[in-house]
C-alpha cells in the first residue's frame, strides 16, 4: 500500500465517520462536528493527489478548504445560535417543522 492509497483510505474513513456523526447525533453541534470531519476527509483526498503534482494544485485546494471550513463553521454556529433562540432547543429530533 502506497502513501497515496493510505491517504485516500484515511480520507474515506474520516468521511464515513463524519457521515455517521451527522446522521446519528441528536445535538446539532455534534452534527456540525460531523460535517467538519466530512470536509476534512475530502481535504485529504486533495492532498493525496497533490503528491503526484509538481505544481501542488491539491495543496492549494487544501488550504482553500480549510479556510472555507472555518468560515462555514462560523456561519453554521450562528445559525444554530439563532435556532436555539427561536425554539429553545438544539435537539434535531424535536426540530421537525419541515414535516408536511
Amino acid at each position, binding site marked *: 500500500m502506497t502513501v497515496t492509497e493510505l491517504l485516500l483510505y484515511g480520507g474515506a474513513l474520516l468521511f464515513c465517520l463524519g*457521515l455517521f456523526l*451527522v*446522521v*446519528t447525533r441528536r445535538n446539532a453541534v455534534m*452534527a456540525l462536528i460531523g460535517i467538519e470531519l466530512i470536509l476534512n476527509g475530502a481535504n485529504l483526498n486533495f492532498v493525496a493527489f497533490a503528491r503526484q503534482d509538481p505544481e501542488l494544485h491539491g495543496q492549494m485546494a487544501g488550504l482553500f478548504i480549510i479556510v472555507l471550513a472555518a468560515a462555514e463553521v462560523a456561519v453554521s454556529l450562528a445559525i444554530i445560535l439563532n435556532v436555539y433562540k427561536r425554539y429553545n432547543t438544539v435537539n*434535531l*429530533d424535536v*426540530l*421537525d*417543522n*419541515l*414535516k*408536511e
Partner: protein
Amino acid sequence: MELPAEIPSALYLALAIPLVYVLFFALQSFFGNKFRDKGDSLALLVSGGNFALGLTVFTKVWGTHSGPYNLGEWFSAGPFSISFTVHLDNVSALMLLLVTGITFLVHLFSKEYMKHDPKRQRYWAFLSLFSFSMTGLVLAWNLLLIFAFWELVGFSSYLLIGFWHEGKVQGSASQKAFIVNRIGDVGFIAGMLILYVHYGDLDLSSLIGMSLFGETPPGFEPISPFWKILAGLGLTLGALSKSAQFPLQVWLPDAMAGPTPVSSLIHAATMVAAGVYLLISCVPLFHPVVLDTLAFTGALTALIAALSALTQNDIKGVLAYSTISQLGFMVMGVGVFASEFSLFHLATHAFFKCGLFLTAGAIIHALHEAQKKWRSQHGSKADFDVQDIRLMGGFRKLMPRTFVLYLIFAASLAGLPLFSGFLSKDGLLLGAAAWAKGEGGLAFLVPLMSVTAAVLTAVYISRHAILIFFGEYRLGKFKEGLGNFAGQIKEVNFWMLLPLAVLAVFALAPVWAIQNPIHATAESSWLLGGIPAIHLWPHETWMNLFPWVISLLSLAGIVLTWNRYRKRNIQLEASPSGFLKRLSYHHFYFDSIYQKLIVQPIFAVSAALNFFDKKIVDGAVNGIARVVLEKQGGIRSISGIASWVEKNIVDRTVNGVAGGVMGLARRSRKIQSGKLQSYLILTLFGLLLLLGYLFYFAS
C-alpha cells in the same frame, strides 16, 4: 330587360311622396303624444305638401313616358333576385295624384270630424301609414314589391277599421277584413310563384314584355295554357279580395265600423281600387279564360251588391254595397277589354264615392253635435242610432249646403248625363255590350247584369237620397220626446264643406272630357287620351244610342223610387218582411253561409285539436312523467331506482377508492418526518443507487 340608367327629377319627387308619409308616420307614432293639437296641423301640412308633390309629378309625367327604373337590388338568393323596380308612367302618375289629393281632402275633413277624439294622434299616424303604402304600391313595378305594399295597405286598413274598437276580438270587423284579405293573398302568392317558375323574374316590365310577344326566357319551358290560367286566376283572387268582389266581398260592409273619413278614403277611393289597379296593370299577363272570369265575376258582383243596397237602413251600409257594385263594374271592364274605362271609372268613382261618404260623415257629425247640445240643454240623452236613415228625413232644409253637394255626387253615381259617372260607366257598359256581341253565347249575361246593376244604382241611391233629405224629419215619430230634435241639427262648418266642394267639382263631366261631355273617347277626354287602350270592337251606330237608353232607364227608376218612397209610411222594423227583401237585406246570406260552412267548421276543428292536445298529448307526457318521478304503490319509480343505485353502489365504490387512496397517502406521508437527518439518509441512499447504476451497469 334593359332599364334606362338615368333617373329623371320627377322620379325623385315621386319617391319623396311615400318617404314623407312614412317619416311622418314614424314621427307621429313616437312623438304624437308630445304634439297634442299641433299634430293636427302637422298632419295637414304633410298631406298638403305631398299633394303638391303629387300634382307636380303629375304635370311633369303626364304625356311623357317614364319607363321602369331599377333602383337597386333588394335581395337575392342564388339565381333568384328581386330589385326595387319602380315605374312612373301616366297611370301611376294619375294614381299618385288621386291618392295624395284625396288623402289631403280627407285630412281636412278629419280635422273637424275627429276633433273630439282623444286618440286622434294615432289616427293621423295610421292614415299616414296607409298613404305611404298606397303610394308605394302605385310606384312599384315588381310583383313582390307590390305585394309588400299590398300587405301594408291591408294592415293599415285593419288598424283603421278597428280604430274605435281596439282590444275587442269577438265580432271584430277589422279581423274579418284582414283574414278575408289573407285568403286573396294566397292567390296572389300562388300567381307570383307560377310566374316566377315560368319566367324567372317578377319584374312586371319583363313579364309583360315576354307575355305580349309570347317569348320564353332562355333555359325555361314555355308556359302552358293551364299554368297561365292558374297564374292569372291567382292574381285575380288577390285582386278580388282587396277590391271586395264575389266571393270575398263580405268584409267591406263590416268595415263601415271604422271612422267615416277612413271609409271614404280607404274603402271607397283608394285601397279597394288597388285590386282594380293590379288587374289593369297585369292585363297583358292574362289568358282569355281569366279575362272571361273577370267579366262574369265583376258583373255578378255588381248585380248582387246593387240588389243588397236596395234595402239597407244604415247610411254607410248603402254606400258600402254601392262601392262593391261599382268596383264590380271596374273589374268587369278589365275582362271585356275596356280597361281604360275601368281606370277612368276608378278615378271618377274615387271622387263621387268619397264625396258621398264624407257627406254621410257630415250628417253623422251634425247629428252627434246635435245630441251633445240636446244633452246639455235638456239633461237627458238623445239616444238613437245616428246612422239609421229611417230616422232621418227633411235634411235638405236642415243641411242645405250638404244637400246640394250630395245631389251632385248621387247624380254622378247614378250615371246621369253631364256628370262624371255617366262618362265612365257609359264606356264600361258599351265595352261590355260590344264584347258580348263579339263573343256570342252566354256572354250576353255580362252586359245584361251590368245594365241591370246600373239601373238599380239609380234606384238605391234615390231611395237613400229621399229617405235622408226629403220629406219631414221622422225622429219624433219613432222616439218619444225627441220631436224637437231637428232644431239642434246645424249645417257642418267650413272645414268639412270645403273638401266636399272640391270633390264635387270633379264629379262633373266637363272636368274629365271638355270637348264632348256626353261621350268620352280618347279624343274628347284628356284622361283616356293618356291611357293605353286595347280596342277589339269596332264602333257601330247603335252604340251612340246606348248611353241614352241607360240614362232613360235610370231616370225611370228614379221616378218610380220617388213615387214609392215619398208617399210611404216608413216603418221601423227589425228585419224587412218578404222573401226578396230579406234576401237583399241580409246580402244574400253570404255572412251566414260563410259562418256555417267555413268559420264554424274551422272552430270545430280547432276545438277538436285543442281537446287532442290537452287530453292525449298532455296525458301521454304527464303519464311518462308520473312513471319516472312518482312512487307507484310500493314500487319505486325510475328516479327512485336511479337514486338507490347512486347511493348504494356508485357512492360506495367512489368512497372506497377514496379511502384506499387516503390510507396510502397516510402511510406515504411518514417519509416526510421533518427531521433533517432522515432526509440526509434518503439522499445518501439515492446517491448510492445512482453510483451503483453508473459503475456497474453503465460502463
